[in-house]
């Protein structure tokens, strides 16, 4: 029993990381209907940037103090991720706005490969997985259940709290603030939004930046939880995050978080059940869930069925 509970917790932790990434997918899609397949790479670059911050920017005597190291790494990782997203939007996607949807989609795949290779070739020793520090207090809470017991590391608890907190903040931001309304106006009808005096370029860049900052945060926590990072992490987790966004209903904030939690839990629980094939098959079950969702509720949990504008 304890083993299942442990896997459930692990699932929520994994879901939190995927959820932070999925928010970026869902935001950009919600506003400009672009599936930004390079978003996983923004997450990866954020993780490498935060590692660079730890290795070369933080003075060694401060790097061990978590309440300095963790915020510094998150800040730096998110900053680099945000700058990357701004450049990506400006040079790869903006020139293609108004082009058929396939064009920016293929561009996104190109950007994704490009970024992976740049990091792999130019970050020192990035051809192998890089060890990543645990930028938080070691240890955790030990849970006793019947005759079993397991430990939940503090960093994992912090991660879940941060992920859910940020998602809630984002939901509030989009529904209640001036910028959030402008985003929704552009999502509804970009031409009319422009006629209301809203500059779509500014709002769209800001949408990318928000997604990138969340991906940067996810990058730091992912490193702290896996203890290593590699240049494939963006692709792999990007696919999970995209799946999460689709499960929850792409364009929906709540949906992205719920979808990610489901994916996290399905993966860890399926890995624990021998008759589902164990860890060898855990990825399979994620996509089985996706296929069922697409068959029975293609718009996802919270997605609206697409309406064609009159």
């Amino acid at each position: 029993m304890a083993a299942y509970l442990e896997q459930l917790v692990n699932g929520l932790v994994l879901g939190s990381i995927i959820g932070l990434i999925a928010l970026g997918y869902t935001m950009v899609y919600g506003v400009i209907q672009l599936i930004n397949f390079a978003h996983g790479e923004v997450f990866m670059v954020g993780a490498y940037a935060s590692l660079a911050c730890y290795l070369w920017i933080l003075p060694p005597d401060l790097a061990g103090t978590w309440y300095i190291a963790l915020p510094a790494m998150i800040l730096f990782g998110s900053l680099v991720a945000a700058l990357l997203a701004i450049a990506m939007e400006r040079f790869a996607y903006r020139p293609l706005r108004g082009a058929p949807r396939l064009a920016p989609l293929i561009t996104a795949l190109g950007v994704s490969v490009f970024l992976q290779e740049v990091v792999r070739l130019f970050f020192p020793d990035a051809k192998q997985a890089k060890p990543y520090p645990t930028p938080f207090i070691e240890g955790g809470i030990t849970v006793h259940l019947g005759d079993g017991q397991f430990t939940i590391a503090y960093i994992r608890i912090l991660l879940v709290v941060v992920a859910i907190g940020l998602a809630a903040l984002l939901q509030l931001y989009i529904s209640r603030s001036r910028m959030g309304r402008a985003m929704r106006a552009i999502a509804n009808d970009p031409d009319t939004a422009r006629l209301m005096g809203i500059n779509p370029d500014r709002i769209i860049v800001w949408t990318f930046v928000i997604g990138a900052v969340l991906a940067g945060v996810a990058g730091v926590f992912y490193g702290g939880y896996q203890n290593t990072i590699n240049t494939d992490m963006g692709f792999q987790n990007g696919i999970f995050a995209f799946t999460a966004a689709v499960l929850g209903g792409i364009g929906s904030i709540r949906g992205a978080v719920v979808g990610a939690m489901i994916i996290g839990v399905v993966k860890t629980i399926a890995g624990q059940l021998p008759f589902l094939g164990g860890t060898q098959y855990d990825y399979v079950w994620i996509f089985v869930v996706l296929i069922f969702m697409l068959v029975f509720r293609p718009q996802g949990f919270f997605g609206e069925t697409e309406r064609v504008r009159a």
Partner: protein
Amino acid sequence: MSAPVLCASEVSMVFGGLVALDSVSLELHSGQIVGLIGPNGAGKTTFFNCLTGLYVPTKGRVELSGSVLPKDPAKVTVAGIARTFQNIRLFPSMTALENVLVGRHIRTKQGPLSTLLHGPSFRHGERAARSRAQELLAFVGLSTVHDELARNLPYGDQRRLEIARALATEPTVLLLDEPTAGMNPQETEATRQLIFAIRDTGVSVVVIEHDTKFIFSLCDRVSVLVQGRLLVQGSPEEVRGDPRVIEAYLGKPPEEVAEIVEEAENE
């Protein structure tokens, strides 16, 4: 008379080989309501698009309070021209209040950071924007539907919501594209009163309509567009009596038609 608020001089718009507008001029003075009528396809909406920066005229120029209009529709709105649409273009999945708040966007300032910090300037600005939006909804007679999604509103309410949203941008000139299309006589009369009320707040108005009775009872001056050209321009009385207008709308008068038929039969 003082200088016009809005002055379009010899505006032409050519799409490929099609001349949609052929040197159309229009002057709008402060506090005036000007009507723009004409048969379908006369170029009325095209003219509005030239006035709002959606189209850049092939020839001619548009000036607002003496300065040439910017080329970006977003900047035209900031400069002070707002409009509604012939086919309603609200933000369907936002509430009535939110639609008006989007109109407030350019007149409010809170950036991303002050929103995140949720400081006093943010709360104050947001509260002011909301109360202004509520006033505007009340002004157009929609005070009971704040939280209704725009797409769920009845047709007439959607038209009035568009007007409220346009007014939220604090325009000096308001362009209304068929504001009474699809309305019953009571709603039409309410809209007429609303346009007078808008005029009385100091906003100058240009109205496109098919309903000539509505236009003649509303406007200070009326321009008639036919096939991209300005046919007649003048006071409602002058325009109403002009035989060319009657011909454009109804065809030739019966006596003349009878004559033509007779001539044809004699040949």
